[in-house]
């Protein structure tokens, strides 16, 4: 393998992995607090369209990314009000959020279809970012580095911070946490909002970095793969990172073989690969799950009502 090809492959993997990583880390925190938000796909689409619109209007992609986070969090707030305050079924509400996100993003994005915006491009000086070899380290969009830093941050937060301990406690036993005096719903609201912001950020990666343009259903089910990654990782941030980059590799395989004019497999089969890979990986992980250390948070998906 030549060096330029290797560089291209690594960069392509990182590019495909980053939105999955960011969205999955957000969802991981949400699930650790005991809430299952299946609306990741919808929040990503909302983030993608908002990010694009703001970036296009202001000409500042970074502003677009911030707006995408805010929009994702706002969408998550709808989910929070329904499931946490009104105790609606979390599965149904998550599905509703995805349907809503698909519809509203298509509606809001209609004027932006077919145009491009400035890319949220590399932050390092061109000497590094465009260097034929060094760009494998320095040539990425800031979101790639954000994803890696976020992995460490989420790991540290859950493992070593007081707030992370409380969040895990809430997800492990909401009633016990409430009995000790922790504000279960407040913790869950914050987690849900964080998850929404991360999904929004992940979504705008597609519209501001990868393509960079807006199209209906731009994220093509990647939000669902992010949810599957959390299961794959058994709720451990380090494994989310590994999983996201593995999926990035699968998607790169698809792109590279298309680019190489590799016609042995039908393109449709290659396009199915990420979804088939998700199923296979889930099957392997789920069948082998035994230890309590890798089990889902005990309260995942259960509504909680304070008894006072």
């Amino acid at each position, binding site marked *: 393998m030549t060096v330029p090809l290797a560089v291209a492959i690594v960069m392509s993997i990182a590019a495909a992995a980053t939105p999955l990583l960011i969205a999955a880390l957000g969802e991981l925190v949400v699930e650790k607090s005991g809430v299952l938000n*299946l609306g990741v796909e919808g929040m990503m689409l909302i983030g993608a369209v908002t990010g694009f619109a703001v970036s296009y209007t202001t000409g500042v992609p970074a502003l677009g990314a911030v707006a995408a986070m805010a929009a994702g969090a706002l969408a998550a707030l*709808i989910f929070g*009000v*329904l499931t946490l305050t*009104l*105790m*609606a*079924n979390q*599965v*149904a*509400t998550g*599905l*509703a*959020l995805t*349907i*809503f996100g*698909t*519809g*509203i993003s*298509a*509606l*809001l994005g*209609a004027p932006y279809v077919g145009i491009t915006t400035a890319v949220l491009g590399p932050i390092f000086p061109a000497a590094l970012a465009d260097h034929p070899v060094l760009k494998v380290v320095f040539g990425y969009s800031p979101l790639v580095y954000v994803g890696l830093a976020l992995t460490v941050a989420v790991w540290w937060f859950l493992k070593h911070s007081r707030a992370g301990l409380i969040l895990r406690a809430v997800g492990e036993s909401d*009633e016990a946490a409430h009995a000790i005096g922790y504000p279960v719903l407040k913790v869950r609201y914050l987690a849900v909002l964080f998850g929404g912001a991360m999904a929004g950020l992940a979504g705008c990666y597609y519209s501001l970095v990868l393509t960079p343009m807006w199209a*209906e259903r731009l994220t*093509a*089910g990647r939000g*669902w*793969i992010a*949810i*599957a990654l959390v*299961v794959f990782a058994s709720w451990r941030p380090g494994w989310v990172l590994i999983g996201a980059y593995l999926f990035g590799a699968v998607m790169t395989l698809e792109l590279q073989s298309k680019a190489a004019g590799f016609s042995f497999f*039908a393109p*449709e*089969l290659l*396009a*199915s690969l990420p*979804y*088939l890979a*998700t*199923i296979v990986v*889930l*099957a392997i992980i*789920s*069948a082998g*799950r035994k230890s309590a250390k890798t089990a889902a948070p005990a309260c995942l998906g259960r509504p909680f*009502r304070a*008894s006072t």
Partner: protein
Amino acid sequence: MGWKLEPRREESRAMMLAAPVIAVVATLIAGAIVFTLLGENGPGAVYQIFVAPLLSLNRWQDLLVKAAPLAIIAVGLSVGFRANIWNIGAEGQYILGGLAGTGVALQTLDLEGGWILPLMILAGVLGGMAWAAVPAFLKTRLNVNEILSSLMLNYVAIQLLYYLMRGPWKDPEGFNFPQTAMFSADQTLPMAVPGTLIHIGVPIAAALGLTAWFLMVRSITGFQIRVIGLAPDAARYGGFRQASTMWLAMLVGGGMAGLAGVLEAAGPFGQMVPQFPTGYGYTAIIVAFLGRLNPLGILLAALVLALTYVGGESAQTVIGLPAAATGVFQAMMLFFLLATDMLVRYRLTRTTPAPARTAPAAAAGEPSAGSGRPGEPPPPAGDRIQRERTEAAAL
């Protein structure tokens, strides 16, 4: 002073029926406001989508034709949802049903006979079942979450459709368009009402709804599904196995979605095209919830959702509302339904400030006074005291 939710002692039947109506009305109001804020003609959109189609007899035909697949899929899904089995792969199962029926059709293009259509329909049902069997197998054997596996298969089904349209099944005389040949007369659904668009899928949907309703209420299998959904441990205790329920729910859901798929292919489409997936599999989820997972309710809810499709189309042409508006209305309806749903189990009460310390002790009354204790929290709410109090009061 504020509002607070108080659990009801028994679920409110009135609210059960009222919640979908409230949700639809709230959607109309909120929809008008939201679309006005988005710079569209909000009230006009609501009128065009929800009222105008009802005033035209021709639109009623469209309504029934669009409602039929939604109702068939949603009735199938409701069986699973009742049992807390979340098959959200109806879109893929619908596609596979259509593809399986098309497969039979392409093999029988040159043949004649009344047996062809029933064979296509059978193939469609089996196709949907086969696609749904994958998540059922993965769940029962390997404990794979059925939400994720069934959803992933939707994307795979779409790629399979594209592949067949682009290659093997492409009509050789179709000017290289990625679509199959048109179906023959023996491969097309007959009309239920001659001279209209209303094909036999419509009465089939109604009959399936009624049958499913009877079976859910009166059969031991329906009982099994309800128990599994309400209390899985109790189901095990009652001798109902989780795995067999999973298979049952997935196969019924997949089979019904497949049926809807083949009816659409052999009905309105009359051939297979890449545009075949229209999102019915997702919309049917909303239909199932709006119909309260009750097959009779679903028949009504399917009409409401069909209205958003039919009305959405006319709103596009009449006032230039974007096509995506339909999806937004549908999602809002589900949001509002989920929000009002809690009124079935809880009621909204005004919280009053705590009574003054000096309130007469006589106001305390007797513990046994409560023949009706409407506001008593249910035991699973996690407060054992409440449960204990009930006992003391009842004795």
